[in-house]
């Protein structure tokens, strides 16, 4: 039992020692490196899969070691948890010690002040009490105490208690920071959704299903999301001739909270760097692209029109790719199997500003100057009824392989141009409207992250600026009307420059003492 206790105590002591803390700090820095060098799931899932595919031997092993999710991996968590335990174990005794020291009187002078690295002696005129009063007066702002031992008066003074206070504040703020970050991860969520800028129905953040992608903390079950509805009236982008963007802004209407009962809409101009903050949530403009509009005229002259976002493939020129699926109007084919043989699918590229090399379409500019598409048009079963999840931006290749979907045409179309399939179906490219990528974020703890970050920095500044110093003055009557003054000083921390500082202090302390010679006493180097 005793051995167990000793073992536990020694482990604790090792864990809370500075050397261990240093090693853990290194491990923390070292452990974060793969997080910067390897693709991370949280940032780009696609790149992780690509990396694993390209490195078939090492990739799966890295994956097993959670190297693609470094900051939530078991080993990274272990490092910072140990570091914080070490921090608490190291700082708690120091906190208690500091609280005690606030009430303690400065320690008595060592017997031999001349043994201190910095000391000074002088003979001055006046009585010991009078000189003591002057010196003590000059030590205002220091914690000081005078002790009398017969004829001899000793003054002990100490300053710089704030340094340790700042130090403790810094370290405990780090702990607070970690807790606040963790709370944010537990109770927060963020979701992304594409909204087409056509004043259309927009979207409401009432449930995770309303989002295209949704990441939530463990306590979020999606039933109590703060309701925000928004619709996008217009999107403006300005570009330099080089294609570099100079401004993005979206005119939106939104309603939140009680607006939903009265159905009142509020206007807002959503910009990069100017999120909409409402009800503790934030709405961001995170990206944009184009949604082309196609109209399909079926052989029975009925038309169907769709506007759907394409995925930007080139972030500079906004050349985009995507797919669309059209169902024949109800009633044209009474037999569902027959209807499925006559569905239309479109897949291809969209360029906001057309640039052709032969028939190869690319985009020369990101603005909607001369929109054009290069598309394959298919007829057959486009997969809308299969019940299988499909990519929004590409057709299911299996349907094409199985010949359920057959290519009928490959065409380049400009806005307003159309093409006629051999069965009389007409596919027209009408043009395009911009869409925006909206992110809704909820993090109830982020204000606390900021608060702790600021107290952390304040503590750090105090602990770096304030210096811990001790001085002792011993006054011994040396004859009629003269007092021998001995001064000694100790820099308890941060002793660079302490030599000059002590000399200045000595000069200041003896400045108003009559008969004090200019400071020239032996200087120990």
């Amino acid at each position, binding site marked *: 039992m005793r051995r167990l206790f000793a073992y536990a105590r020694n482990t604790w002591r090792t864990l809370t020692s500075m050397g261990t*803390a240093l090693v853990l700090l*290194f491990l923390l820095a070292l452990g*974060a490196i793969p997080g910067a060098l390897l693709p991370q799931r949280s940032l780009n899932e696609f790149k992780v899969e690509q990396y694993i595919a390209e490195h078939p031997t090492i990739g799966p092993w890295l994956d097993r070691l959670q190297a693609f999710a470094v900051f939530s991996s078991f080993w990274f968590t272990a490092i910072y948890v140990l570091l914080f335990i070490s921090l608490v174990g190291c700082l708690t005794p120091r906190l208690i010690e500091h609280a005690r020291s606030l009430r303690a009187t400065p320690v008595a002078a060592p017997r031999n002040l001349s043994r201190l690295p910095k000391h000074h002696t002088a003979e001055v005129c006046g009585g010991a009490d009078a000189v003591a009063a002057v010196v003590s007066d000059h030590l205002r702002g220091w914690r000081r105490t005078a002790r009398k031992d017969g004829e001899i008066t000793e003054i002990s003074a100490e300053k710089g208690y704030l340094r340790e206070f700042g130090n403790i504040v810094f370290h405990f703020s780090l702990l607070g920071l970690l807790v606040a970050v963790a709370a944010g991860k537990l109770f927060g969520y963020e979701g992304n959704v594409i909204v087409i800028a056509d004043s259309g129905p927009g979207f409401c953040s009432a449930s995770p299903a309303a989002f295209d992608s949704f990441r939530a903390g463990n306590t979020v079950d999606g039933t109590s999301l703060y309701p925000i509805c928004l619709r996008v009236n217009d999107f403006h982008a300005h570009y*330099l001739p080089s294609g570099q963007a100079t401004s993005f802004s979206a005119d939106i209407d939104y309603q939140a909270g009680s607006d939903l009962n009265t159905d009142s809409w509020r206007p807002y101009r959503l910009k990069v760097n100017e*999120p909409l903050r409402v009800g503790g949530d934030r709405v961001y403009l995170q990206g944009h692209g184009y949604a082309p509009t196609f109209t399909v005229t079926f052989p029975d002259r009925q038309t169907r029109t769709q506007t759907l976002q394409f995925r930007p493939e080139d972030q500079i020129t906004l050349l985009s790719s995507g797919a669309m699926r059209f169902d024949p109007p109800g009633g044209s084919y009474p037999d569902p199997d027959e209807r499925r043989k006559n569905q239309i699918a479109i897949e291809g590229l969209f360029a906001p500003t057309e640039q052709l090399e032969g028939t190869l379409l690319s985009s020369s500019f990101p603005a909607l100057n001369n929109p054009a598409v290069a598309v394959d048009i298919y007829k057959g079963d486009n997969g809308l009824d299969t019940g299988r999840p499909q990519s929004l931006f590409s057709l299911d290749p299996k349907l094409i392989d199985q010949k359920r979907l057959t290519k009928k045409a490959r065409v380049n179309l400009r806005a307003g141009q159309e093409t006629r399939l051999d069965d009389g179906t007409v596919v027209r490219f009408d043009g395009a409207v911009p869409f925006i990528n909206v992110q809704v974020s909820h993090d109830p703890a982020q204000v606390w992250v900021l608060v702790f*970050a600021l107290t952390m920095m304040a503590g*750090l500044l105090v602990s770096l600026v304030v210096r811990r110093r001790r001085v002792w003055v011993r006054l011994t009557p040396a004859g009629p009307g003269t007092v021998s003054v001995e001064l000694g000083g100790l820099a308890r921390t941060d*002793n660079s420059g302490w*030599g000059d500082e002590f000399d200045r202090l000595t000069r200041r302390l003896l400045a108003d003492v009559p008969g004090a010679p200019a400071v020239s006493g032996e200087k120990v*180097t």
Partner: protein
Amino acid sequence: MNTEHVDIGLARFSDWAFTSSVVVLVAAMVLLAVELAYSRGRKVESAELVGAATAATFGNGAATAATFGNGATVGADSATPGVVAAEPKRPLDERVGTAGLALVYIGIGFLLACIVLRGLATTRVPWGNMYEFINLTCFSGLIAAAVMLRRPQYRALWVFVLVPVLILLTVSGRWLYTNAAPVMPALQSYWLPIHVSVVSLGSGVFLVAGVASILFLLKMSPLGRPDTEGALARIVARLPDAQTLDRIAYRTTIFAFPVFGFGVIFGAIWAEEAWGRYWGWDPKETVSFIAWVIYAAYLHARSTAGWRDKKAAWINVVGFVAMVFNLFFINLVTVGLHSYAGVG
């Protein structure tokens, strides 16, 4: 080139100021290096004049470094009372060194002109891409060096500050040059002047700290022993003593550490506004975190027995490497949210 948003004339003057700055700083480095390489004889002579006490501290880094806190040794040769040497005619190498120092200040002035003119030409803060950011960082480093190395006896250190600064400026001017232009929407925020300037101030001062720590390690190495022969050892002997180097490293680090910390926090506040989260382990964020942890380790090592001297200095050098890595690798090789910097 885009003429609508930019004053081309001013932008051209800014480029000329950049070139002038590099040329002047190269000349300054050559002059200072000449002084460093050829002035050993005079130094030893004057050290002998002053007496044995100084000679013992001079060049004997290992012994002095053990007694930290004795700032008084620094410059003792000129401060020791009792020895009044007649002012001799200043020797050639010293005049060369002084001229080099004057050129350094002129070079800093040109760099400042380059930065200011860029700002005027584009009517925005002149740190919106890698070229401008590196220029500002070099400027911060040079200013930090000018403050830390203002005493004449530290002049020898300038060469070692100018080497990395000139490498950075060459890379920036040769490979990362970007035409003056407005910044992309993500950078159009009042946080751009705050975050980037604070980070580059921190980085620049860390550069001086890193140089001082490298020189400290050189001084503590066998090369720094007084009985070592050879050209390199002679140059190492010309440097200020180990304790001074260590103090420069420490002082610059405790200045840059909170500055850089604030830079990262300002970045986090901006990220919350621009990217939708305050921290997302973007590669730049990650390496900033790593660098900050390394410098935190340096400060802890400084107050841990057994880690104080060489190990702490090594940590500082590693921190410097992390900063350089953050500057180049993260912006130029990996793809992250900080990759807009006008490159590629």
